[in-house]
C-alpha cells in the first residue's frame, strides 16, 4: 500500500485489520477512516487515523443508562463473538451496565457458531434482559429467534451497529417485536433523507447504516483538502481536518471529539438514536449524544 503511494484509506475496515496496519499507515502518513470499534484504533500514536462512525465507546454509556431507566431489566446477559471486537464491546458494555446500576453477564462464543440454544438455556435462567449489541445482524437475529423459541419474553437490547433490518429478516417480526436497537441515523433529517434517497436510487433499497457516516467523513476530508489546498500532503490535510467543526454533511453538522477518551480529537461528533421495533418497523424513541439520551 505504501509502495503504491496510497494516501487515503476510507471504508469498513474492522478492529483487527485497523490495529494490524496502524504502524504502517502511521509511518506512511496514510489518512485512514475506518470502522474499527476498538479504542486502540485511535490515539496520539496514530495521528492519521480517524473514525467517522460512532462506536460502543461513545453510545454505550448514554444508551444503556436510558434503557435501564426505561425498562425493568437489572440482570442482563450478553452473547458476543470471542475475538478482538467482541471482547472490546463486552468490556465496554459491562462497564456501561455497571454505571447504570445493572449487572451484565457476558458469554463469549466462537464466531462460526450458529446454534445458541445450549448457551441460552443456561444464561437466560437468571436473566431479565438480553443484550445482543456487538453481533453481526445475522447472528443477533439468530440468537433472538432461538431465545424466543426457548420461551424468553423479556426485553432485548441491541446496543450497537445498524442491525435492525437484517435482524428482522432473520428473527422474524414476532420475535423482534419490542427490541430496542441502536439507531445510527435519523432519516427524518432533510440532509440524511436526501442522501438515503440518492443512495437507494443508485444502489437499491438495502443501505447499510454506516454508509452515510463514511459519506460524512469523506465530506469532511474533501473540505480539509480544499482548505489545505492539496490532495497529496497528508500532514497538511490532517492538520486542517483536525481543526474542522460544524461541517455540513449528509448527517448534519459534524466535527471531531474524543480528546478525553483517546487523547486525540479524531472521533466523529454526531448525534445518534435509540429505536424500538414495533410491528416490524423501527421507531425512534430517544435522541442521544455522548453525554445522555433524551
Amino acid at each position, binding site marked *: 500500500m505504501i509502495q503504491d503511494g496510497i494516501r487515503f484509506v476510507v471504508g469498513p475496515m474492522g478492529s483487527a485489520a485497523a490495529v494490524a496496519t496502524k504502524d504502517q499507515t502511521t509511518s506512511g502518513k496514510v489518512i485512514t477512516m475506518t470502522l474499527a470499534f476498538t479504542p486502540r484504533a485511535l490515539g496520539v500514536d496514530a495521528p492519521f487515523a480517524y473514525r467517522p462512525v460512532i462506536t460502543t465507546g461513545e453510545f454505550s454509556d448514554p444508551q444503556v443508562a436510558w434503557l435501564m431507566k426505561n425498562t425493568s431489566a437489572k440482570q442482563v446477559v450478553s452473547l458476543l463473538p*470471542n475475538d478482538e471486537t467482541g471482547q472490546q464491546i463486552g468490556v465496554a458494555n459491562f462497564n456501561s451496565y455497571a454505571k447504570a446500576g445493572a449487572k451484565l453477564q457476558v458469554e463469549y462464543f466462537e464466531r462460526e457458531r*450458529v446454534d445458541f440454544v*445450549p*448457551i441460552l*438455556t443456561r444464561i437466560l435462567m437468571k436473566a431479565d434482559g438480553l443484550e445482543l449489541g456487538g453481533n453481526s445482524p445475522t447472528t443477533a*437475529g439468530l440468537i433472538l429467534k432461538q431465545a424466543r423459541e426457548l420461551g424468553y419474553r423479556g426485553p432485548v437490547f441491541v446496543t450497537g451497529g445498524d442491525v435492525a433490518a437484517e435482524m428482522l429478516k*432473520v428473527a422474524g417480526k414476532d420475535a423482534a417485536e419490542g427490541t430496542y436497537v441502536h439507531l445510527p441515523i435519523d432519516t427524518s433529517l432533510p440532509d440524511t433523507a436526501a442522501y438515503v434517497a440518492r443512495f437507494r436510487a443508485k444502489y437499491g433499497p438495502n443501505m447499510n447504516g454506516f454508509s452515510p457516516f463514511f459519506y460524512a467523513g469523506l465530506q469532511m476530508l474533501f473540505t480539509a483538502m480544499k482548505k489545505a489546498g492539496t490532495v497529496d500532503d497528508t500532514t497538511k490535510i490532517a492538520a486542517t481536518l483536525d481543526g474542522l467543526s460544524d461541517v455540513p454533511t449528509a448527517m448534519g453538522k459534524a466535527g471531531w471529539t474524543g480528546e478525553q477518551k483517546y487523547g486525540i480529537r479524531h472521533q466523529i461528533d454526531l448525534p445518534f438514536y435509540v429505536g424500538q421495533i414495533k410491528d416490524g418497523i423501527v421507531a425512534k424513541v430517544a435522541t442521544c449524544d455522548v453525554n445522555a439520551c433524551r
Partner: protein
Amino acid sequence: MSMEIILVQTVVNGLMVGMIYVLMAIGFTMVFGIMRIVNFAHGEFYMVGAFLFAILYGSNDVPFSISVLLAVGATALLGLLMERIVFRRFRGNELNGMIASVGVALILQNSVLLMWGSSSRTVPPVISGVLSVGGIVFPWSRLVVIIGAIVAVVSLNLLIGHTRIGRAMRAVAQDAEIAQVQGIRVDVIFPVAFVLGVSLAAFAGVLMAPVLSVSPFIGLAPTLKAFVIVVIGGLGSVPGAVAGGLLIGLIESFAGTFVSASLSEILQFLVVIAVVLLRPQGLLGRKEREA
C-alpha cells in the same frame, strides 16, 4: 427451571444438533469410504440445498414437500455434475482429490454469492410453536429436524443393508477391485454413492434452513464438524459417523449449557486428539490393511 428439566432440554438440544451432524458426516464418510475422496465441498452442498429450499419454500411459497424434493433433487444433480466433471478423476487419489474439493467448495460458495448475494435469508418454520411437556420446552421446528434426520438415517440404513445397490456399495467400500471382479459396476456405484452423500447434505441443509438462517457462508462449519466426526467415528464407517455425530452434538450441548461455549469447542477437539492417539482408526473404524 429444575435441573431435571435442564438436563432433558440439553439432551434434546444435543440430539438435534447431533442428528444434523450425523446426516452431514454420513455423506462425508460414504464418499470417503467408497471413492477415497475427502470432500471438503460437502458443506457447500448443504448450503446449496438450504439456499434452494429458502428460495422455493421461503420466497416463492412452493409447497413444503415439493420444495424439499426440488431442493434435494437439484442439489443431487449438481453433485452428479461435479462427480462427472471433477471428482471422478480423483478417485483413490486422496491428496489431489482433497485439494480439488476445496476448489469446488470455493466455486460453489462464490457462485451462490454472485447469483443470490451475500445477505441472509430466512425460511418460515415448517411448524411453529413449542411442545411443552412438564415444564420442558421443545420448539417444534427443532423436533422436525430430529424426526426428519432419523427418517433419513433409517432409510439410508435400509438402503445400504437390504438392497442390491446397498450391498454393492458396501462391497466397493471394502475392496473396489474385488467387487469389480465379482461383477459389480464400480463406475455406477461411485456416482451413486457421491450423489447419495450430496443428497444427505442437501437434506440436512433443508432441515436446518427454517431453524437457522441461510447464507452463502453456512457450509464451512458443517464441513469441519463432519470432518471431526468422521475422524472420531472412523473414516468410511457409517455407524461411526452416527456415533461420532451424536457424541459431538451432546458434547456441544452439555458443555455449552453447563460450562461455556468456548470450552465446548475445546472439548470436541480434545476428544478428537484422544481418539487419534488411542484408536487411530476411529471408534468404529477398521484398521487399514498393511501391504
